[in-house]
């Protein structure tokens, strides 16, 4: 080419120039290569950290169902109205410019400037320092959002005040996320919004899940409750990974807590592209959330409701007590009631002042699960174990024991243990085992419990029942070797150094009913996937897991069972008047443990039972704090539960207790 021929000539200038151009070209090519190829990976990852935000999408929480498939805890959609902050950024700037302090000066101009058309009026904007500017910007943003809220509020016919602090917090930390302005929107508001507001303002309806308990109070303690939590799961260390998290439910107590991770499912993730001001530009869901599993309980809602109603009707609306109904063969828990409660829906929705007061009331203790989480003195119901231990150690059932009358109160018995007197509520006279159980004679049981090796066997039985293991107190075999007789005597009548829960007593009662098997209580039947294809097999928990055997011969168990039947059938029995279900033979034992707290005697009243006598199926344990006596307070409750248990099951469950709209 002629162009290059020119360079061959001896034109130094042109050559130098050509060399300079070539050098420049090489620099450019090298620069492009360096940036676009060599460092591309670093730059790409820096770009991603800079302009992508990951948002955690909570999964739909699994349901909790009763054994018949009735929904006890459900996840429903609620709607929030949220503002898109990115659409306001221009309005923010405009408002800021409007708010900026202005100084308008009118100068007197020399004539020639007038001729030239200089403007005499001059507007200047004084410079703001950093703090003033930041404050003014907040002011501008708040004004704009407030105006938008007023506009929206007028259309929805709902006043929408701006919570400045909440807005500032949201704006400062989650600019890329929509700002929720109205939570739990009702149907009218949704209609109004869709009709008028949705197009005219940068807002949208956001679906959020809410946890709903249709049977509110009746299932409160067994299900537990959830709260919306923003913190990450410390186990998986999610916090470090996500830029934003949408609030997730976290189980706080009960089944909700125990099976929290199963119910929760796997969170999904979406990626939001943001611009340099942090506003949202676009978003994509990179992995959808995986719904949590359903938890199917062994609970029978019909029995649960009956038990709850029985406690409420027989004892009172704020009865402090618990009812446990257990299948004596499988260990299935059919009802687990603790009272009083607070509506778990109220916890998710927020308390009214009255509910708050109730929540804070220490004496009511609405947050206590009295069936499994609180420990009580067992009282006379534990005498069944002492009886079994003594029989196994050679006590003859018909062996008589004479109870001395109390010198101060001749109608009641007394027991002298060394120099200590132990008062008895039973009258003086001759007692065999059956009568002693029926009348619940303290003196008799202290006497047989202190015989050689009997107490050791009692401790052994408690051990086999796993008392005092995860909760409660029970003496250990090596501890009792050097115990004074007084301590032993107390334990023989279910007081002193032992505390139990109603659930533990239900296991004990079931063991009496099923010839000595100590069952693992079973509250959850299976975990089911919410996957609609049904291809994922459910996780089924085994039935009737035997943890231990009481190691008592059936003939001795039969003696105690006969005595327990007499307790409800014998005219002299402590439960005779109160536990009377036609067509059902109930074996029972009452108990009243006295406890002195700050000089006031508080009774813990008990009634343990199983039925039918011929072929036991259910164990029912009722405990009421501060009741009158085991038979009088707890007996009728148990009777009501038995009525429900033998009632035909076709009766539909009344589901109107729902505490939500």
């Amino acid at each position, binding site marked *: *080419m*002629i*162009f290059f*021929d*020119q360079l061959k000539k001896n034109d*130094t*200038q*042109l050559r*130098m*120039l050509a060399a300079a*151009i070539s050098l*420049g*070209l090489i*620099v*450019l*090519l*090298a*620069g*492009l*290569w*360096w*940036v*676009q*190829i060599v*460092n*591309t990976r*670093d*730059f*790409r990852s*820096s*770009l991603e950290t*800079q*302009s992508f935000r990951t948002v955690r999408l909570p999964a739909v929480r699994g349901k909790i169902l009763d054994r018949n498939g009735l929904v006890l805890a459900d996840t429903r959609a609620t709607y929030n109205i949220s503002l898109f902050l990115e659409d306001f950024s221009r309005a923010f700037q405009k408002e800021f410019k409007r708010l900026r302090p202005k100084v308008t000066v009118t100068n007197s101009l020399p004539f020639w*400037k007038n001729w*030239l*058309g*200089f*403007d005499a009026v001059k507007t200047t904007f004084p410079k703001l320092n950093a703090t003033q500017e930041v404050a003014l910007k907040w002011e501008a943003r708040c004004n704009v959002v407030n105006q938008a809220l007023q506009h929206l509020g007028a259309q929805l016919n709902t006043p929408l005040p701006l919570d400045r602090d909440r807005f500032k917090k949201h704006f400062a930390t989650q600019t890329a996320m929509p700002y929720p302005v109205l939570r739990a929107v009702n149907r009218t508001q949704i209609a109004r919004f869709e009709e008028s507001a949705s197009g005219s303002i940068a807002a949208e309806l956001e679906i959020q899940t809410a946890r709903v308990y249709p049977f509110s109070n009746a299932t409160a303690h067994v299900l537990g409750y959830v709260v919306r939590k923003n913190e990450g799961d410390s186990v998986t260390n999610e916090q470090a990974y996500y830029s934003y998290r949408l609030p997730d439910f976290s189980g706080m107590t009960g089944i909700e807590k125990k099976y929290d991770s199963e119910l929760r499912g796997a969170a999904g993730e979406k990626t939001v*592209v*943001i*611009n*340099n*001001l942090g506003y949202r*530009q676009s978003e994509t869901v990179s992995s959808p959330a995986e719904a949590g599993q359903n938890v199917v309980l062994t609970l029978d809602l019909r029995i649960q409701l009956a038990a709850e109603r029985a406690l409420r009707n027989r004892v009172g609306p704020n009865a402090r007590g618990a009812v446990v109904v257990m299948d004596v063969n499988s260990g299935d828990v059919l009802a687990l009631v603790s009272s009083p409660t607070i509506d778990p829906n109220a916890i998710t929705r927020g308390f009214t002042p009255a509910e708050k007061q109730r929540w804070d009331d220490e004496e009511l203790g609405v947050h206590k699960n009295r069936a499994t989480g609180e420990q009580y003195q067992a009282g006379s119901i534990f005498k069944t174990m002492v009886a079994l231990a003594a029989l196994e150690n050679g006590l003859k059932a018909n062996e008589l024991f004479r109870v001395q009358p109390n010198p101060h109160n001749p109608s009641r018995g007394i027991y002298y243990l060394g120099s200590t007197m132990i008062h008895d509520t039973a009258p003086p006279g001759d007692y065999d085992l059956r009568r002693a159980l029926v009348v619940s004679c303290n003196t008799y049981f202290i006497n047989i419990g202190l015989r050689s090796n009997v107490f050791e066997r009692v401790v052994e039985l408690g051990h086999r029942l796993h008392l005092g293991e995860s909760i409660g107190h029970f003496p250990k075999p090596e501890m009792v070797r050097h115990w004074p007789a007084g301590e032993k005597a107390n334990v023989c009548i279910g007081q002193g150094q032992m505390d139990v829960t109603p659930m533990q007593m239900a296991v004990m009662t079931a063991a009496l009913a099923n010839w000595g098997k100590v069952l693992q209580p079973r509250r959850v039947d299976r975990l089911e996937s919410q996957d609609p294809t049904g291809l994922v097999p459910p996780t089924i928990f085994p039935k009737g897991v035997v943890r231990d055997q009481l190691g008592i011969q059936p003939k001795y168990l039969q003696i105690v069972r006969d005595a327990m039947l007499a307790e409800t059938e014998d005219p002299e029995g402590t439960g005779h008047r109160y536990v009377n279900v036609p067509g059902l033979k109930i074996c029972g034992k009452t108990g009243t443990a006295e406890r002195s707290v700050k000089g006031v005697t508080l009774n813990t009243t008990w009634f343990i039972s199983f039925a039918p006598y011929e072929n036991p199926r259910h164990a029912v344990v009722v405990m009421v704090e501060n009741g009158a006596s085991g038979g009088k307070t707890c007996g009728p409750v148990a009777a009501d539960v038995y009525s429900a248990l033998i009632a035909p099951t076709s009766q539909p469950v009344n589901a109107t207790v729902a505490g939500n709209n």
Partner: protein
Amino acid sequence: MPGHLSPVSAFPLEMKVAVTTLAFCVAALLALGMVMLYSSSMTQVGPHYLLMQLIWCALGLAICVTATVMDYRHLKKIVWPMFIVAIVLLLLVLVPLPHGLTKKINGAHRWFILPGIRLQPSELGKLALIFAMAWYVDRHQRFMHTWERGVAVPCGIMALIIGLIFIEPDRGTTILMAGVCGAMLLIAGVRWKYIVPPVIAGMLAFAFAIWRDPIRMRRIMSWIEVEEHKNGTGYQAYQSMLALGSGGWLGLGLGNGRQKLGWVPEHHTDFILSIIGEELGLVTTLLVVVAFVVIVVCGIYISLRAPDTFGFSLGCGITFLIGLQAFINIGVVTSALPNKGLPLPFISYGGSNLLAMLACVGLLFSIARQGRVLQPPPSNPFAAEEIPQPA
């Protein structure tokens, strides 16, 4: 054309190829510019910039066609009036005019603010200076090897315009014009020993000015250590590298860039190449570089065939202007050079610059139309006497 210095019997094929290639490259860059302008501005301002640029482009093409049709030698008559107008406008832009006609934007007096548009008088100044230099070289070509007429006087002419641009301040254009004028003088035959001292003096003065100016000094420092200054003065350069770098070979795809969301300031003007790199990758950025190289080669090819020294000098000046401006811009975007405010010719958004650049291309076409066949002097004086033997 009879009467001209070296009449051309027919428009030679090679010239046709050069002109067609030049036109093709310019058109391709313009088209790419439009597409990228829309891609980079649609998310924030919509089609406004694109419409404005289309209007400017139409105007520029009209000027380009006019310049092509016209004989460039008529320019000689208006060189000095144009020079004076440019100086007056450059002076006016420095003083505060009534009705907010001039305004300090980003700390510089560079623009006349008219309703809807902003005009940069320095673009006119660039052209006026190149014309004046070409005129001067043509007029005094026999004395270009002397000190007074070869260096002193041209430097005086240059100083008038470049000085005014310098105090606007517009460092980028200053360097650009100094480079272009220097190259023009060099080609015109100024001796090395005369041109080196003023270049060194100019560089020292420039270095001193930067040394005294903390803002520019910081810019230089941030260029040297981009990573340390990525949140401060080096922000733009760093973000531009992020954009280019994340593009890789083939880019993220047209419209998929993230950096145009506001991360790269001036992404539709000076830094548009970074968005091109992000969305279309190294392949396209290399093509852009190649297109500018081809434009420079074609420009020099045309200039060398200019019928007179004025045309030769003018063509070279224009070609250097386009080439050097592109070089500086690409250098800045890739952080090979410190940050300057220069647009990428034909691609960046900006009316004044587009007009000036298209006018330049028109002048090159005009020179090509008057072009003569270059007769290479025979290396062998007897070669011409050889009689070709028929095969």
